[in-house]
């Protein structure tokens, strides 16, 4: 019972945050609501007993990527730009496309509705999440881990190449 209560709380935070993100006029307000959404997702991870992932979600997404977003918004002065008139002549096409995607999603949900159950009681002797992630990542999933380092290298080089005019 308490399980469901927490799930609905986190889910409503996520959905409300998402809705408010896309409807705000000010870019900084949108960023703040996006932060709320990401914190809701961290809460969901916590609810699923994945505490390490919840912590990492907060550290990386909220504490890193959203800081990057905020820096860009503040530096480029996006608020000013947001107040100018946006061109949205093709709103009917957008509505059509959104309706199509939404219909598809609803159909998928309808077909799979038998699979939505709340997880049963968690066995009491589960290893702590961090150790479990460590075991899995560094023994079974070693290759994706090494590939991740290459992706980080690419990201590093790409960011600097794009940002600096004269290297």
């Amino acid at each position, binding site marked *: 019972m308490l399980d469901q209560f927490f799930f609905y709380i986190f889910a409503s935070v996520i959905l409300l945050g998402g809705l408010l993100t896309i409807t705000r006029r000010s870019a900084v307000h949108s960023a703040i609501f996006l932060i709320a959404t990401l914190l809701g997702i961290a809460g969901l991870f916590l609810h699923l007993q994945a505490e390490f992932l919840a912590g990492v979600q907060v550290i990386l997404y909220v504490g890193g990527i959203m800081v990057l977003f905020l820096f860009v918004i503040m530096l480029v002065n996006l*608020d000013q730009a947001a107040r100018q008139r946006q061109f949205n002549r093709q709103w009917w096409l957008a509505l059509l496309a959104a309706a199509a995607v939404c219909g598809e999603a609803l159909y998928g949900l309808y077909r799979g509705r038998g699979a939505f159950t709340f997880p049963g009681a968690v066995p009491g002797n589960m290893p702590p999440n961090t150790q479990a992630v460590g075991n899995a990542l560094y023994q079974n999933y070693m290759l994706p881990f*090494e590939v991740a380092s290459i992706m980080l290298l690419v990201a590093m080089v790409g960011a600097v190449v794009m940002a600096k005019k004269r290297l």
Partner: protein
Amino acid sequence: MPGNYIPILVFLVLAFAFPVVALSLAALVRPSAQSGERLTPYECGIQPVSDSRGRYTVRFYIIAMLFVIFDVETVFLYPWAVQYKALKVFGLVEMLVFLAILLVGYVWLYKKGALEWV
């Protein structure tokens, strides 16, 4: 939700309530006269020269980007460190490869001056 996070939730509520109570109390007892020069932004006593929304350097963006990348690296290090005694030399070699690739990136950044002033 794991049971030992409930006190954190309670703590969050209390920790948020304290500034709220303090600030409401202050709002009740203090004088407030919103007028005049007090309402303009502070610029050492002179009239503000320009809007605060000028152009700022791109270095802040580079720092934030590099921070995200190295933060991801740090987050990869935590489960490795915690499981280190079980992973032994195999884990060490694995992580050495990971760190070596990122070291190449770091040295490149150093040489290219991306960490300058920063």
